[in-house]
């Protein structure tokens, strides 16, 4: 059990600094990162956007937004790779690219890798615990 906990803590020590580091800031082209027109992006996926009590900004899309999504998809430039350049506002950035980058955790953190590692770590710890109990019995 102790070994499993040591492994778990070790992985957390390695993983957390990259995901819990300061939020990343992206700026419109030509704007300084000091600008008031920058967007602060959480570096790990699934982070709640705000702590304000009335800030439960719904992630659901209204029907106008759904209609817009079709327009956006139709007008977005083609053949664009989802790169860091795209996120930073380079020519050819697309809504699809934004979504992909968002799902990947903004490109700067570990994104989906972090929960996968944590789940794997938990499973390993549980397996070790079960094995140890079986050995004792």
């Amino acid at each position, binding site marked *: 059990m102790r070994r499993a906990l040591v492994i778990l803590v070790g992985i957390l020590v390695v993983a957390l600094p990259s995901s819990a580091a300061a939020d990343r800031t992206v700026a419109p082209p030509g704007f300084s990162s000091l600008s008031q027109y920058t967007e602060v992006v959480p570096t790990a996926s699934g982070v709640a956007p705000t702590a*304000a009590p009335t*800030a439960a900004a719904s992630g659901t899309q209204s029907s106008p937004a759904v209609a817009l999504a079709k327009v956006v998809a139709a007008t*977005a430039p083609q053949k664009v790779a989802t790169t860091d350049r795209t996120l930073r506002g380079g020519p050819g950035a697309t809504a699809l690219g934004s979504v992909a980058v968002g799902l990947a955790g903004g490109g700067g953190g570990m994104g989906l890798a972090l929960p996968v590692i944590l789940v794997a770590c938990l499973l390993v710890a549980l397996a070790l615990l079960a094995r140890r109990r079986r050995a004792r019995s």
Partner: protein
Amino acid sequence: MLATLCLLAGAGAAGPALASGLPSLQLGFGDGLYTASDSAVRATWLERSAALGARVVRMYAGWPAATRPADPADPADPAYAFTSLDAAIRDAAAHHLAPLLVFSGAPSWAEGPSRPASATPGTWLPDPAAVGAYGRALATRYDGHFPDPLHPGLALPRVKLFQLWNEPNLSAYLTPQWQRRAGRWIPVAADQYRLMLNAFYAGVNATVAGDTVVAAGTAPYGDFGHGQRMMPVVFWKNLLASPVSFDVMAHQPYSIGSPPTKALDAGDVAVADLGKLTSVLRAAERRGTALPRGEHHQLWITETGYDTRPPNPGGVPVATDARWLEQSLFLFWAQGVDLVTWYLIRDQPPGGPPDSSSQTGVYYYAGNPKPAATAYRFPLVGHRVAGGKVRAWLRAPQAGTLVLQARSSGRWATVRRTVVSAAQILDLPVPGRPQELRATVAGISSLVWTL
């Protein structure tokens, strides 16, 4: 609001577009040039604005009362210094442009007590009563009947559009944004702004009917928790949580990337995210907190733009800027926007510290046009719909016979010829699989749109 539509229709824009069956899109610019002290500068840029198809000019009125007026609702009170604004409004009217007066920042006598050193002067708890009185003074001075001090026997021009504050979700303009109460950080800026807006609406409408009050002009991005900025969705939800009177919801999106690039945070609102705001607004209308009850509040974009390279090394190339301007206008229109006032007709002087100068104009600082000037005057966007079919969206710069051409396999061919009205919006099917589109009307050519 009806007055607004009539005003713009009178300027020769709204009527024909509505007649086409598609919603209209009015255009304007926001720029400090319109209130420049040099009348020749004002005249030059008002003339160029009108020539590009603008019908509205967003002008920075300020709050020109260094000391508290004896009667702050009286525009003739000697504490007010309206001479410069009078001149700018006379010039705008002479160019048949509708001024949208905006002011942001309170004189010290109209701020709340005990402004902390961290708060920018003019931002701290502006007194709602003083805001309301100033709104009444502005609306009265420019009601079309107020005697012109410089021209006895004549009246100052009528102004119908008034915007309260700039980006009130930023501490750069309104403080505090958050306050700690009972161990929790509470968003308070929207509550303060609601008090100001209700007072301003009452003041503007106190003496003359038919004026339009524009709310906010929210900035696109906020901070998590209790930072210096409030996300616009958070701001609007808080603002509309209790009854508040206004005619127009205004927002000011600056995209991180190309126009279709959505904000990554749910509470932020870039060019392609306006549904986040309209859903909040329409819900408030149904709930009865967006007043006047029964009014369909319009959505305006009172600032947007892209810094260009040159002159900003970090900006987008000017050809890309032109394409993004067209795409922005199309996306705004598709999301139900009624008016866009582009931020800057001319670049500001380059140099200085970061962000002290904006290069979002459709003209360079030297006065020569960027490709964006053509894009603004005659926007044309090719877009794909279901089945991969192509449509051409455009806004006609003039009345005349529109000729739409498509290039396929290296050859240009006319695909549509139709009579249009000035400012008419069209969304036309394009046969085949074109690679490029272009259009002309009345001798004016659009840029080439590459699909």
